[in-house]
């Protein structure tokens, strides 16, 4: 089996990092673990010195997640690549299972799996995401929604030579963008079972609500400027394109509506307003729907 590189990017979270690294080592037999320390200002460097067997990359100027992932790629030598966040945990043996499957299909560029959702206290829930694992030519499904949890995806290094590196200016959606670019040219596989524990973002974490409207607007821009212009999308029928946009914008407005309600519940009025404006730009109809729901729920 060829070498796999697990690229773990981290920034000021030394407590969680160790668990992520240990889970990475247990996930497969022939692998290298690369920890990219994205200009942490705490004891991360010291913690990494104690972690045996890792390849430690110290970035001096903060690159944010996507830029740090690219530097992990630069430091890596594996034929297969996977990214792991410092608060994620890979399941034992999961990587070997995925790669074995990927090696059975030379047409496939990437294989993903399910993630067990973990709540804020760190306890696993009984939910896995995604519930349905699309396989094969998934470009059109992916355009509507990112159903590939970043840490579960393993892809061939050779994909990068054809589609380019992750776009470091797309903070928060760089993985989605990369999956779409890979799915445009390659078939995608899935191992329909959990391969990692995944702590999703919440208001308390740094990726909380304040980022939600920015990420949605950035996704919309990326859809319009880039994804829509991928050759396979351009040459598709009008109906296909329309369906993809409808799926995408429905998903985005659902996401924003949820964030508005969450911000309201936490009495973050500024944030709620920001998200509402983002929603208004994306889909006025969805906003009306939201206002109606909100009225129905508000105490009288």
């Amino acid at each position, binding site marked *: 089996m060829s070498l796999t590189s697990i690229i773990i990017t981290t920034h000021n979270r030394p407590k969680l990092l160790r668990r992520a690294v240990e889970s990475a080592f247990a996930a497969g037999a022939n692998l290298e673990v690369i920890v990219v320390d994205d200009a942490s200002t705490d004891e991360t460097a010291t913690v990494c010195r104690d972690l045996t067997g890792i390849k430690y990359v*110290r970035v001096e100027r903060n690159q944010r997640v996507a830029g740090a992932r*690219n530097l992990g790629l*630069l430091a890596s030598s594996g034929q297969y690549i996977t990214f792991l966040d410092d608060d994620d945990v890979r399941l034992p043996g999961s990587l070997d299972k995925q790669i074995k499957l990927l090696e059975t299909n030379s047409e496939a560029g990437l294989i993903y799996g399910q993630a067990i959702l973990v709540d804020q206290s760190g306890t696993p829930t009984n939910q896995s995401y995604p519930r349905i694992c699309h396989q094969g030519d998934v470009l059109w499904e992916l355009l509507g929604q990112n159903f590939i949890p970043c840490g579960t995806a393993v892809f061939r290094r050779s994909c990068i030579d054809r589609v380019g590196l992750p776009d470091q200016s797309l903070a928060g959606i760089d993985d989605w963008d990369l999956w779409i670019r890979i799915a445009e040219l390659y078939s995608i596989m899935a191992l329909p079972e959990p391969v990692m524990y995944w702590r999703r973002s919440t208001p308390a974490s740094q990726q909380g609500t304040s980022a939600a409207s920015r990420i949605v607007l950035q996704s919309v821009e990326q859809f319009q400027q880039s994804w829509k212009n991928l050759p396979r999308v351009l040459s598709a029928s009008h109906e296909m394109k329309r369906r993809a946009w409808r799926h995408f914008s429905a998903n985005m407005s659902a996401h924003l509506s949820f964030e508005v309600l969450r911000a309201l519940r936490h009495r973050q009025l500024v944030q709620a307003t920001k998200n509402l404006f983002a929603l208004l730009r994306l889909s006025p109809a969805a906003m009306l729907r939201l206002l109606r729901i909100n009225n129905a729920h508000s105490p009288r």
Partner: protein
Amino acid sequence: MPSVSIIIPTCNRPQLLPRAVESARAAGTDVEIIVVDDASHDETAAVCARLSGIKYIRLERNQGVAGARNVGILASSAEFVAFLDDDDLRLPGSLDWQTGTLAAARGAGFVCGAMLIADQNYRPTGAVSAPPEMDGDVFWQLLELDFPVMPLSLVIRKQCFLSIGLLNRRIPGIDDWDILVRIAELFPGITSAEPVGIYRQPTPCSGQGSSVQSDQLARAANHQLQLFELPRVKALSKSERQAIRRRTINRITDTLLWNAWRSLPQKEFGFAVANIATALRLNPFRALRPAVVRRMGTTLSERLSERNSDPSGLKSPTA
């Protein structure tokens, strides 16, 4: 393991590429030549198949020059990297001495040489673009654009990218300046007036559009504000930062005006207008100094009167 990788991004220029590759081959004894074909849709792939001893990477989707360079950096197996555009040339032996110098200076991040400016037919015009000769910290000169930056004249220690990141795809045309400023913030550099390459200077009518150069300079002026976020700049006092900003804007304005003035005799009026408009936007007071206006006026009226007296001047230039 080769000592240096020379990364040549190319897009739809199969007639020029082989010459660039041959010059790269002659530039060093231990060179890995990486051609990154940025989704060309002509016979570039076939031309590359005939070139022996290169590492050919075929991007199926266009990534732009910076994106293609990044893919090249990723594919490189050497300790040092150099960049070459598909229409420029490296001088024989130049990579050998640059890598030798950089290998000997252990802490240095890059070595920068000079380049000969050539016309569209690779004929040297006699002009040389050379960096100020200095060793060590060139950060401030780079930040102020007081330094001719050309990827062609550089050899960079690959390790540096791990500290400061890869090239930025979102700033076409100035990604090389941006990366060098970031490297120089942390690593000393070595500069030399020794020519290492031949730069094929674009003319306003060489198909790159009359406003490309002025757009790039405007983008650089804009982008400098982002570079002001670097810790070494942030540590300065406000008045020091303002002084840097003022000098840079003045320098860019002067360059724009000079480009405009220089293009008047060639009757590249679109180019001149684009440059003057950008200069006016950046620093109207400097652009409207009486001396500048007078000089532009004189040149312009000379051209115009020549045009009226000489009917051949009315003919459109043949391609």
